[in-house]
């Protein structure tokens, strides 16, 4: 009796979860399907499958807008920023975790001070500073801000991880006469790869998606990133919904594909970053 009640309840929960999955996926499915429809078809049959799927909308976005340029900029900025974060954070964390020195605790706290700070609120001084340094409307400027924003949590994660590595490893290297740099690069860092991947994913997603800093700093179309570029053609084609859905689909595609391939790492990286 209790058994049957339990089973009925589980079936109900399963049903509710399925409904929730539809709510989460259906909008994305409509976005994808509408990219292959003509404008008239979207307005007349919003729920139907494309009657005669055509690639006109996608071709339009790819060929007649600066989409490829925006994509290249996003790739460049994200790669450089994540690379910078991982390299600089690993260097600093290695010093903090593996060498005792006098101001070690203070330096660690200095890095952590940026952990919860919404840097958006410092946009005015950043703008004045960028103006002086001629970083306004440059991709380098974005990269520097993103590195600065990513360092606190990356230093925190990397320091915690590097502290757990056993000291015998470096000692044996020293006895064999290896330099400190060689010990770090060939013995210790290969072991720290999992923590580096977490730090990289945790930063790559928000940087790839960021809209606020490009909005403030980037003015030339040739340097715009993907989220910012999206606002350009959403404004330009605002009556042609087929093209709009195609633009949204193409913009969502790169990160969606990477996410589907690496969903476990993405979820771990992004939630662990919050949980610490």
């Amino acid at each position, binding site marked *: 009796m209790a058994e049957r009640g339990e089973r009925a309840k589980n079936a109900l929960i*399963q049903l*509710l979860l399925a409904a929730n999955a539809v709510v989460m996926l259906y909008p994305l499915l409509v976005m994808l399907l509408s990219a292959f429809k003509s404008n008239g078809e979207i307005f007349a049959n919003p729920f139907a499958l494309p009657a005669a799927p055509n690639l006109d909308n996608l071709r339009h976005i790819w060929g007649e807008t600066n989409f490829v340029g925006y994509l290249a900029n996003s790739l460049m900025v994200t790669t450089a920023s994540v690379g910078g974060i991982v390299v600089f954070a690993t260097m600093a964390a290695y010093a903090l975790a593996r060498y005792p020195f006098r101001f070690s605790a203070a330096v660690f706290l200095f890095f952590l001070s940026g952990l919860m700070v919404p840097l958006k609120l410092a946009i005015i001084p950043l703008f004045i500073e960028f103006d002086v340094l001629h970083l306004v409307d440059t991709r380098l400027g974005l990269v520097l801000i993103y590195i600065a924003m990513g360092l606190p949590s990356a230093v925190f994660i990397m320091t915690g991880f590097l502290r757990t590595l056993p000291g015998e490893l470096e000692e044996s290297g020293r006895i064999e006469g290896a330099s400190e740099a060689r010990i770090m690069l060939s013995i210790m860092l290969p072991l720290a790869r999992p923590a580096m991947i977490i730090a990289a994913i945790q930063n790559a*997603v928000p940087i790839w998606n960021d809209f606020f800093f490009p909005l403030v700093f980037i003015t030339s179309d040739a340097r715009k990133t993907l989220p910012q570029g999206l606002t350009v053609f959403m404004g330009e084609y605002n009556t042609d919904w087929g093209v709009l859905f195609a633009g949204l689909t193409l913009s969502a595609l790169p990160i969606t594909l990477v996410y589907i391939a690496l969903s476990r790492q993405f979820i771990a990286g992004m939630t662990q970053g919050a949980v610490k």
Partner: protein
Amino acid sequence: MSGAGGRARTSRLWLAFLLAPGLVVMTMFVVWPLLSAFRYAFYGFHGLVPAGFVGLANFRDVLFAAPFSAMTLRAFEHNLIVFAALMAGQNGLAYLIAFALLKTLPGHRLHQVIIFLPVVLSAVIVGFLWQLFLNPLFGLVNQALLLAGIQGPPWLGDSTTALGSLIFTNAWHWIGFPALIFLAGMQRISRETLEAARLDGANDRALLRRIIWPLVAPSTTIVVVLTFIGSFNWFELPYIMTGLNGDPGGATDVLGLYFYRTAFGGVSSGLQDFGHGSALAVLMFLFIASVSAIVLRVLRRREIEA
């Protein structure tokens, strides 16, 4: 040559080499700008140049003087509504979804991947997508309502539904995040604890309220603090969906939009006002930092008691 001395010298240089890049970038692009924000709030500006100390005048203006004070208050109220609605709606539902996933019914892993998918998308994509869906005539939502014989409102164009529509879109975008944080918290509770409660005759409702709720306290702390910070930094979604003025008629104006308009100029006037903008930024920073610190302290104490 003394080996120890040489070693100490190389290691000091080596340490400096390791620490310098990170410290320089942090100082230049986080610490210095933040400290400067506090200083600039006490200055008047000519364009980009500070033009004289004005004491607390900027703060007085944004808090008590027209036309700032009314906008400040309205935006602040909207942020409060957003926070409360996301806590109750988005995070409440996320808690229930996490509990459903804890039962490890068939497909629970796939469900985790699905609800987290919108989380990895940019707010710009999500905002535009739902703007199209919420279109009064051709949008998916009203077309679906029409099938049921209901004429839906112009969701984003009506001041009574606009903010709610934004909150719904935000919840759709982010719900996977609190859900999976709660789930991780629930998975840390030992099987024996849950089994023992079941044997004592606890049903799901009792389990959720008396056993799981106190034991996921650390997850709750994170969710509450991050939702609070996120709600009071809200910018991208309203900017994309209802514009820099928080249309219609300021019904979706929030502090993020208002701060941006004040600092860099609105749609109609391109006038920069860095003095008042800095004062707003400082007030928002102090509010967010102090409330987060208090909430964190209160909730951490609750974790220990549980």
